[in-house]
């Protein structure tokens, strides 16, 4: 196969850069803005954690990157740049080259993403044959080699087995083997350990760390588990209702979070060592995506909500390499324009503070 586009290592720009990405779903009941102006980037060899609750748009963001969003969904605006090259205008054939070759993806539920009527070896070999242009025999050898690399005992025998003959952890290893078999520069992992038991989760996380180290693969790790993020990520993006609400390095997010939603999330998880203390709570529930509030999307659940929050808050810089979509000053006080500033004052103020869409 000849590669019509080269997105490999060493080209210009960060490995992956999303600019103002908007993916909307045009349903009968109205437009769901699942991803609404998301901007972030992943550098070569780095791990970016994307966290948020169900419905915040983190999975749709991942699907958009590989252009896997189907009707009624559509990327309506924005750019997805891989080493400077925009994927949005690519044809179906061109994007197929990117999938698997440059960017691979693993999903939450390995049983539904493996084909039940082909053996594990066949499925990996198919990927390898297609993307690396190898013959049948060589592709199967590579498949067995990959199964060995991801720690599957007796890989030759396992390659002849069907997905239902493997445990959940083994299946996820097969998925990882398949995803990494083509040496992608970016691995998108969508809740890779959520369906697994804790001791198996530990195995898979260790495996991903090991693979990251040996292959230099960058990882975009989507999860709702803050423990997994703390353990794996270099940088963290926190999403809420389709927007990035906070973004920084993992230490800043966990030690000096700025956005009230991030603070609430961190405070509400029970941690080892917590005994019978009362948990902090984020009141209420995620807003209905068909009927989002005006202004700040979090204001109805926010303990700091002010009248100014009826105007959409800016994504402002609160520290070096640390942005937050909130009206509070970096120190956590009411904004300079005043807590009750009317929209005609607040909007220009937001524009002045804003560093992103």
């Amino acid at each position: 196969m000849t590669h019509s586009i080269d997105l490999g290592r060493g080209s210009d720009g960060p490995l992956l850069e999303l600019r103002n990405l908007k993916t909307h779903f045009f349903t009968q009941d109205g437009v769901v803005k699942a991803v609404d102006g998301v901007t972030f980037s992943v550098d070569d060899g780095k791990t970016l954690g994307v966290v948020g609750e169900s419905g915040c748009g983190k999975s749709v963001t991942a699907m958009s990157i590989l252009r896997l969003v189907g009707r009624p969904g559509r990327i309506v605006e924005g750019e997805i740049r891989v080493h400077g090259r925009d994927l949005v205008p690519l044809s179906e054939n061109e994007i197929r080259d990117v999938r698997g070759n440059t960017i691979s993806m693993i999903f939450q539920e390995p049983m539904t993403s493996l084909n039940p009527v082909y053996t594990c070896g066949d499925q990996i070999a198919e990927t390898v044959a297609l993307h690396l242009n190898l013959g049948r025999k060589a592709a199967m050898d590579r498949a067995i080699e990959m199964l060995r690399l991801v720690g599957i005992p007796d890989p030759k025998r396992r390659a002849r087995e069907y997905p239902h003959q493997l445990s959940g952890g083994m299946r996820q290893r097969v998925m990882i083997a398949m995803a990494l078999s083509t040496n992608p520069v970016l691995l998108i992992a969508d809740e890779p350990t959520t369906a697994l038991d804790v001791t198996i989760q530990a195995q898979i996380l260790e495996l991903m760390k090991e693979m990251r180290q040996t292959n230099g693969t960058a990882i975009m790790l989507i999860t709702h588990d803050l423990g997994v993020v703390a353990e794996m990520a270099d940088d963290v993006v926190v999403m809420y209702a389709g927007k990035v609400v906070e973004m920084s390095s993992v230490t800043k997010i966990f030690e000096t979070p700025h956005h009230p939603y991030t603070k609430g999330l961190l405070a509400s998880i029970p941690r080892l060592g917590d005994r019978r203390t009362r948990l902090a709570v984020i009141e209420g529930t995620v807003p209905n995506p068909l009927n989002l509030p005006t202004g700040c999307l979090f204001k109805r659940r926010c303990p700091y909500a002010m009248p100014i929050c009826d105007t959409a808050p800016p994504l402002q810089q609160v520290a070096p390499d640390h942005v937050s979509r909130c009206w509070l000053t970096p120190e956590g006080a009411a904004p300079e324009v005043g807590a009750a500033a009317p929209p005609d004052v607040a909007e220009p103020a937001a524009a002045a503070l804003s560093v992103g869409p």
Partner: protein
Amino acid sequence: MTEPATTPSAELGSDPLERLMPSEPTATPVGGALIEVEDVVKHFDIRGGLLGISKLGAVRAVDGVSFKVRRGETLGLVGESGCGKTTLGKVILRLIPATSGQVVVDGKPIFGLSEREMVAVRRDMQIVFQDPYSSLNPRMTVGEIVGEGPYVHGLKSKREREDLVRELLAKVGLNQSHIHRYPHEFSGGQRQRIGIARALALNPEFVVCDEPVSALDVSIQSQVLNLLDDLQQELGLTYLFIAHNLAVVEHISDRVGVMYLGKLVELAPVDGLYNQPAHPYTVALLSAVPETDPRRRKKRLVLRGDVPSPANPPSGCRFHTRCWLRERLGNPERCQTEEPLLREIRPGQEVACHFSEDVTPETIDTATRRLPPVSAEAPVA
């Protein structure tokens, strides 16, 4: 972390969030045994053959488990999927029949009772299920779901039943006017509240909570955990709290039992279990929990392999095929031949391991450092 002042939760102390989290620890008066589980066994037959009726074997889901739940306490039960924790919860409530053993509720053995006699016992024992989507009948309104138990147990007046349901909805934090709505009109967290209201409708003493928060988002999880805590304080409930999330179990429990392949391998007060785990499996479980502090990325003690099939469990100690301690002790034969029984090694802390005296910080540390991660036999190219 050396300075607690920089942890997010400590920093929030001076924030408006503080009013949401009064910090006084809760204490429940704990009394004598309310539930006694005596050597309960539950095997599921595997049938096959030409007619599908010959018995080929049995899945030994629960294989001889004994413990007591004291009045007013929360006993946590942890373990990985397939360890039998959910089956045990259902057997205790007699929702499924046990193969052998006995459960004594408030001094009364329940496995010999007739269905009619069970009706009275069931008032006192309720369950909250894991999946708030499949455990509520989509064709019944909230009022019918929550009011069904009281109706069966003799509260026939529609008016009184509605009053009771409204009171229960308020108690679990739902809007009373939603009584005529259907389950699909609610979010996951709200549905779990409906499930809790249903469990409380008969004013039970004992509630089995089977993974009540694992299907919920983190911000909703804490709401439901706090609700369960409040209800326990207010109504003097006794919980058997089944979950796989060790941090959640630590948070809510007074004592914790750890299950592995149908067996209880450790049972201890929450302090003992989390500070001084005595079974190698408990150590590994705790080590597997991701650390929520990015500065303390720890080296883990990673277990090799998967849980063996409960249809054909290993001989002797069921954990011996994955045990790091056994490996460190040079694979003593006793682990394969002799099944370890629960024995008390510290006050209140029982463990089923022949060598739990060798579970020390030193052995844990060496096992953690020595064990290469997953791919033991596969050197990475």
